[in-house]
Each structure stands twice: as C-alpha cells, then as structure tokens.
C-alpha cells in the first residue's frame, strides 16, 4: 500500500527584495524600477513513492534541498508545482526544540510542545512523569526553560518528541541527542520508534546510519533528484561522489 506519493514536486523560494526592507524601501525601489523578486528553485521535479513501513534516507550535500523537501512533505510549505499525496498522520521532527518558550517552566513547555505535536491533554497528563524521568529532569520541573543547560533542553525536547506515533515520520538529523549515556538511550528509543512500523523519511549526513536503517535512498543535488533506489548501490555511488571519484 502506498503511503506517500510525490509527483513532479518543485518548490520555489522567493528571494531578493522581500525580506525586511520595509515599506519605504519597497516603495522607493518600486518607483526606481529596481525592485526585484527572483525565484530560487530549492527542489525540482522530485517524484517518488513509499510503501507502508519503508524507510527512506535522503542524502545530498548542503543546499541540495533536503530540508525544504521535508517541510513540503510535512505540510509546512506547499509545492509550487506537483502534488504530494499522504495517507495517514504525519509527524515532522525537523528541529526538536521548536516551539519552546524560554520564560516558561519545564512543565508548561512540555505541555505546550506536546500540544504542538498533536498530543491530547489526557495523553500528556498520562505521560508527563515518564517524560521527566526519561529526560532526567525531575528536579528541574519548575525551572524556566532558559535556565536549563543546552544538553538538558535537548533531552527534554527529545523525550517529548519521542512519544509520537504517526503513520509517516519525518526526521531531520535528530536520531540521538545529548552526551554519552543519554546519546545511547536516545538512540535506542529512536530505534524503537523506527521499528514501530511507521513509514519514515530520514535526512542524515551519516552514510553508515543510512546503510543500517534505510531500505530506500534518494540522492538530491542542487534541488534535482539524481537517483532513487536501493540502499547499497546508491550509497556506494554517493560515497564515490563525495570522494571525488565521480562528478555529476
């Protein structure tokens, strides 16, 4: 059964005189005829489909359009052309800490972030203790989020996010967080989620990880889909490219 299907998906970014130039500059530049908005195609004609339980790894150098593509699949951006068909619920963990408020307490942040991930209040009431236990933050419950160390913040973020149970899971370089012991624990937890049968899309710069986890791989380069196929063959090609043995 096909769970996710992308057909000729292209995503255009608008760049040029649109960011933070303000009303005055906009008018001045429009009058002078120097107002420019140009298109930047972050992704061009990407097509693939995934079946239930597939694990897709997306590889490519910086600026390949990986994150943009994930945003489109997550529904945060809409493709400029082409279609994306999703069957089932989608959870996108693009940045684990997005949505946290520095001034709120750990407890309030946990509920706020949980709500953003689509959990219900009952679910959070039930799991809240377990989240704190997992994040090892029991003693810091009433601290403001900004008072936590960066490591603690990412532990909390991971503990909340790791409760997702979607049909389609989107991960952007968030397989594990924290220092030694926690990295092992979070990696194991993530493995558990991956094995729960959700169709997963994973962006990672670690080819080893992709070889280990994924059964399909897609290679993006400057927005174009270079290849889509089996893991071993594609990883070998990509490795050769990275080593400078082949050129595109």
């Amino acid at each position, binding site marked *: 059964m096909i769970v996710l299907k992308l057909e000729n998906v292209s995503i255009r*970014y*608008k760049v040029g005189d*649109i*960011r*933070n130039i*303000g*009303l*005055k500059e*906009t008018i001045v530049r429009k009058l002078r005829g120097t107002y420019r908005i140009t298109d930047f195609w972050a992704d061009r004609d990407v097509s693939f489909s995934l079946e239930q339980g597939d694990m897709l790894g997306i590889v490519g150098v910086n600026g390949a359009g990986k994150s943009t593509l994930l945003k489109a699949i*997550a*529904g*945060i*951006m*809409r493709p400029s052309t082409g279609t994306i068909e999703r069957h089932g619920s*989608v959870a*996108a963990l*693009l*940045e684990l800490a*997005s*949505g946290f*408020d520095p*001034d*709120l307490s750990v407890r*309030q942040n946990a*509920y*706020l972030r949980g*709500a*953003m*991930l689509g*959990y*219900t*209040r009952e679910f*959070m009431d039930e799991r809240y203790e377990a989240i704190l236990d997992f994040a090892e933050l029991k003693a810091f419950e009433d601290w403001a989020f900004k008072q936590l160390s960066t490591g603690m913040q990412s532990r909390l973020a991971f503990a909340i996010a790791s409760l997702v149970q979607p049909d389609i899971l989107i991960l952007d370089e968030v397989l594990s967080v924290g220092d030694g012991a926690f990295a092992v624990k979070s990696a194991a937890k993530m493995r558990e989620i991956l094995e729960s049968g959700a169709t997963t899309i994973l962006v990672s710069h670690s080819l080893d990880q992709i070889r280990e986890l994924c059964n399909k791989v897609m290679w993006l380069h400057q927005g174009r889909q270079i290849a889509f196929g089996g893991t071993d063959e594609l990883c070998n090609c990509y490795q050769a490219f990275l080593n400078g043995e082949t050129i595109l």
Partner: protein
Amino acid sequence: MLQTIQKHRFLLEELVKRDFERKYKGSLFGTAWSVLNPLMTLFIMRVVFGHFFGSGIPHYTTYLFCGTVVFGFFSESTSEGLMALIGNAHIFTKVNIPKYLFLLSKNAQTLINFLLTLSVFFLFCALDGVAFSWRFLALLYPVVMLLLFNLGMGFILSALCVFYRDMQYLWGILTQFLMYLSAVFYSIDSFSPQIQNAFLLNPLYLFIRYFRKIVLDGVFPSAGFHALMAFDAFAILLIGIWMYRKFDTEFLYYV
C-alpha cells in the same frame, strides 16, 4: 474552521496560557494591570478633558468610560494581534499548525482583560448613579461584533506586518488618530448634521455609541444601526480570513 479549532483546543489553551505568562512575567501587579491600565487611562482623561468637554455632558465619567473601555479593547486587541505571526515565526516555520491559532490566542487573552474591565465599568456606572435595566443585556451584541471586528483587524494587521514591519510603528499612530475621531471624550452634538453622519463611517464610533445609547440614554439603537455594525464586523473579518488563506504559504518566505 470551528472543527479544526476543536481539534486544536489543547494547543489553543496552552498558547493562551503562554501569552498570559509572557505578558505579565516579572511585573509586580501581574494580571491586575489589565484592570489598572484602563482605570488609569480613564482617570487621566477625566482630569484632562473633564473641564473642557465634561460640563455639557451628564454622567461624564460614565460617558468617558464607555469610550475608553470599548476603544481600549480594540486598541489592545489589535496591537497584540499585530504580532501574532511575526512573534511566532520560529514556530510556524518548523511545525505544521494552523497560523490563526496564534491570533485566537492573543484575542482570548485581550477578551479576558476586556471582561474584567467591563465588570469595573458596571461598578463605576453604579457609583455614577446610572439606572441599571434589563436593556444592558443588549450590550452582548456590540461586544460580540467588536470581538469579530478585532479578530478581522488582527488577521489583516498581522499579515501586513509580515510583509512590512513598518506596520508595528504605523499602527500605533493610526490607533491614536482613530481615537480622536471616535468621540471618546467629546460629544458630536455641536457638529453639523453632515459631519455627525460621517462619524457613522467609523466602526469604533458605532461600538462606543451603542454602549452610550444603552447605558446612558436607556434606548435601543435602530435596526439599521445594528445592521451597519454587523456589516463592518463581518466585512473586516472576511477580508482578514481571505488574507490568511491567500498568503498562508507565503508568510514563510518573509520571516
């Protein structure tokens, strides 16, 4: 839309809590400011304008309070609403949630403030010797219409603010200008009939006048007056919703 609000109710509640917390964090009187602030505005205006405009207007304190309570709600709601998108850009660029929730949350907060102020308003009415009647129930109408109007303005302003940050500064000035045009502290009786009619083009004046009709004059405004208010509120709301729909996926490029 109502269905998705139901679906995101938990998130909306948490956002309202967050906005409340943020607003009053570190202030000594906390939420009390939401009542203290309008009361101080009232006091200052009473002192400054009472001498010039108050002499010919019976129950001038209540007259003035009708103006400040309505205008205060509008001004707080829109100035907060203005930031609904740019203040949450870090969230909607990473998480797929409906963007109007941010505005609803801000408006829920200002609505609560308004209702608190309104209870103080009724207390002042009693102190000022205003006769209460069952007609006061009709005030629900302008309150609901003003709420919709504020929501619409919030949609429009927050969207514009994404494209032009200047709106933040411009809106402060425009609000002030609008306040002077809304007969908050003066009476329009001394103007010519044409100018008096021109005041009806200002939605804020309509809301304020409705309050005064009920509270001070003890009469219901005409059916046409009701219709005009509804027209203003829904026109602005629809424009606002249209903008959010049209630019929903565009906002991301500008933040």
